[in-house]
């Protein structure tokens, strides 16, 4: 018996557990690529339009920060600029979650112990998780190639784009293999790997965003060389189709996997490498109630989001200062931003578009915070409700934390955006307007929150999937709605479509009031349903 005995059996088990989840990831990512590619093919048909897009990308630090540097002025190049960054990040997330799910999470639940007692080698669990994640990345590469090629761009470039995304995913499977050995909980393993991913994105963004433009072309600066996302960008799909940078991914993956295996040899099943800190022997008074407990359980997630959105707000504000000059140079882009942001002054339109997107992103925090209730319900909630705590009181404690947390994250984002813009533009004129543009997202976010609460009350078993799907739909409607010219009733489904586009538009009180009322009604429905139903253990 070798240390790998049982690997294939465990890989089959992992695939069986993921038989819905992984196909959804793969299809979702392929759909994002396919839809973007066909919308690009429809929007930028002539060489002149494609050249204008490329010029905009190259001259705008904003565009380079979010989209990377366009490989060439062609339909394929635009597809890369529009999709590569987001696909690379999502592929990395898919890989991280898959590896941690089949390694550290198994240890946390005790499954790994049971499996380890059978005829299974010491390295089988980790190897099986890596096989599944890397297999998913390979399949994703092929699907992305097919999806983008189907939109009418060259096949060779599509294959290279798929390979670049798949290679990025594979490296982060390796990162997760290591963090799963070091961290002691699945949550911490996911969080650490996601932080590495965030750093990789920031390094790439800094390398691209700060690069000087010379003679209408631009080359990434050194920080991009420290990021696997930056390496993957260097294959330059459709322009160069140069695969050698992917060798760096292969080498890094090999090093990470080797390290992960070495770490498994030096630790016990169920433990981490980091020492577990001891806690206080008695509880602080502030913990002793449903609200104190909810805050304690939710604060970590809030701090993480506030820090991330602080950085994002600062970046947005800094690049917003040059929006006028960049957007003014391209009628097409100005048109797109105008449609997203609601017209008017270009800087205002830019910020309105960005804040609309930011609102939906921050709703991700709200959904995550509220769904903590489901995790509690299948865990320690039974013991809490066996105390003198009513169900509405428990639920309202979590809702309070999530709502105040959302307001806080919005405020942090808005202030960071406003102050960074003020510093870059050398004027305090827009501070109030930009902070308000972030805060005005609150009612729409709360009505989505009300929807999540209603689902927890009415359909507890499905609530997690439905809530995330609802957020995804809002994101798609917000991003693609104006560009694809979706029917109005589809656009109206997202609460974020009804938020006034501050600072470009005026503050309309009616939609805000209606959104807030919807939030209240949905929350009340959720509370009532939860009070009446069986606990779903």
């Amino acid at each position, binding site marked *: 018996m070798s240390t790998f005995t049982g690997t294939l059996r465990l890989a089959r088990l992992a695939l069986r557990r993921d038989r819905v989840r992984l196909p959804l990831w793969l299809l979702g990512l392929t759909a994002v690529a396919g839809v973007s590619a066909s919308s690009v093919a429809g929007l930028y048909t002539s060489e002149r339009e494609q050249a204008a897009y490329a010029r905009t990308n190259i001259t705008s630090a904003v565009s380079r920060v979010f989209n990377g540097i366009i490989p060439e002025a062609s339909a394929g190049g635009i597809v890369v600029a529009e999709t590569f960054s987001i696909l690379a990040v999502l592929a990395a997330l898919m890989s991280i979650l898959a590896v941690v799910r089949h390694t550290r999470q198994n240890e*946390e639940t005790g499954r790994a112990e049971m499996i380890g007692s059978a005829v299974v080698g010491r390295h089988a669990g980790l190897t099986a998780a890596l096989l599944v994640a890397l297999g998913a990345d390979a399949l994703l590469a092929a699907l992305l190639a097919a999806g983008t090629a189907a939109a009418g761009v060259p096949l060779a470039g599509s294959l290279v784009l798929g390979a670049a995304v798949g290679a990025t995913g594979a490296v982060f499977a390796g990162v997760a293999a290591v963090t799963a050995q070091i961290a*002691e*909980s699945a949550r911490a393993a996911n969080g650490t790997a996601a932080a590495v991913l965030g750093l990789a994105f920031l390094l790439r963004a800094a390398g691209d965003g700060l690069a000087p433009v010379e003679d209408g072309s631009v080359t990434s600066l050194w920080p991009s060389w420290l990021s696997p996302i930056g390496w993957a960008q260097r294959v330059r799909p459709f322009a160069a189709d140069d695969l050698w940078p992917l060798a760096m991914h292969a080498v890094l993956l090999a090093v990470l996997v080797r390290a992960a295996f070495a770490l498994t040899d030096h630790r016990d099943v169920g433990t981490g490498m980091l020492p*577990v*800190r*001891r*806690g*206080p*022997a*008695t*509880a602080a008074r502030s*913990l*002793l*109630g*449903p609200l104190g*407990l909810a805050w*304690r*359980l939710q604060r970590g997630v809030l701090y993480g989001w506030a820090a991330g959105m602080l950085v994002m707000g600062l970046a947005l504000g800094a690049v917003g200062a040059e929006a006028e000059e960049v957007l003014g140079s391209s009628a097409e882009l100005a048109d797109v931003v105008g449609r997203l942001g609601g017209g008017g002054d270009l800087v205002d339109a830019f910020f309105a578009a960005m804040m609309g997107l930011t609102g939906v992103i921050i709703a991700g925090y709200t959904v995550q915070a509220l769904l903590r209730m489901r995790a509690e319900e299948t*865990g*320690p909630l*039974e*013991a*809490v*409700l*066996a*105390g*003198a*705590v*009513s169900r509405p009181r428990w639920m309202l404690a979590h809702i309070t934390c999530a709502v105040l947390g959302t307001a806080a994250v919005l405020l942090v984002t808005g202030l960071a955006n406003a102050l960074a813009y003020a510093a870059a533009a050398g004027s305090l004129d827009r501070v109030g307007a930009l902070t308000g543009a972030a805060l005005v997202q609150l009612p729409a976010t709360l009505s989505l929150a009300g929807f999540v609460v209603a689902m927890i009350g009415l359909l507890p078993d499905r609530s997690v999937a439905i809530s995330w799907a609802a957020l995804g739909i809002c994101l798609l409607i917000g991003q693609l709605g104006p560009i694809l010219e979706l029917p109005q009733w589809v656009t109206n489904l997202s609460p974020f479509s009804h938020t006034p586009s501050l600072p470009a538009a005026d503050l309309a009180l009616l939609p805000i009031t209606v959104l807030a009322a919807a939030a209240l009604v949905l929350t009340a429905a959720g509370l009532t349903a939860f009070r*009446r*139903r*069986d*606990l779903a253990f």
Partner: protein
Amino acid sequence: MSDAIQIIDLSKSFGDVRALDRLDLTVRTGEVHGFLGPNGAGKSTTIRVLLGLLRRDSGTVRLLGGDPWKDAVALHRHLAYVPGEVNLWGNLSGGEAIDLLGALRGGLDRARRDELLDRFRLDPTKRCRTYSKGNRQKVALVAAFASDVDLYVLDEPTSGLDPLMESVFQDCVAEVRRKGGTVLLSSHILAEVEKLCDRVSIIRDGYTVESGTLDELRHLTRTAVTVETERPVTGLDGLAGVHGLRADGTAASFEVEAAAMAEVHRHLAGFGVRALTSNPPTLEELFMRHYGEPGREPVEAAR
């Protein structure tokens, strides 16, 4: 109010599965009541209905004089619960979890808490994530026994404890009883129930098959008798209530129903009894009889 818990005809289904089927359970105030049944018989479901965590489909349920669904919050101030599967918050310390669980039901006795931590040998500074099953159970037990309440609802509380800790647990139950508290103890560790409980209810497939004091239950069942006589015993197999007779010359062993005991004694006297041992049935035998040990029929159909 003489009954802490009174359940009559309780039914509860989950989809197509009928978890409780007209179950009855009465727990008198001040008694330690054993709640017995194999895995899946409906013990935890009954307890969760009692705690207002699940809603009953039909039947009457009274808990400490109130309705466990409608009056949940008020009633929970007077009871402490130890779940069968103790789930805690991974990043809270054991001490924090104990204080929190105590505070949620209205506070706990700090001196008693510290004393219990000592007796159960639990380190309160460790994170709950790092506790074993037994240690998580100790957290819930310390939080429960450090609360001064009328009723303790304990769902298989010792399944993860070692024998030493089990005896600490038994001491705690005895102390509760001395103070006049009521305990509902669900278990399938029969020796523990035999040692601790005044009365027991045995359930199977969601309904109660037997309920009463151990003596009463024993009364319904057979006693194992072995006897040595001067002359070989004859005619025993003709007596009503005698089962499983094995005779070998002057030695015989058999089982006898409680009602037939006197008659059997009279019969044996005629053969010159040299030695006689009679063992009342253990709870285990009693239990087995209800759960289809092959070749044995229940003495009395309960329903």
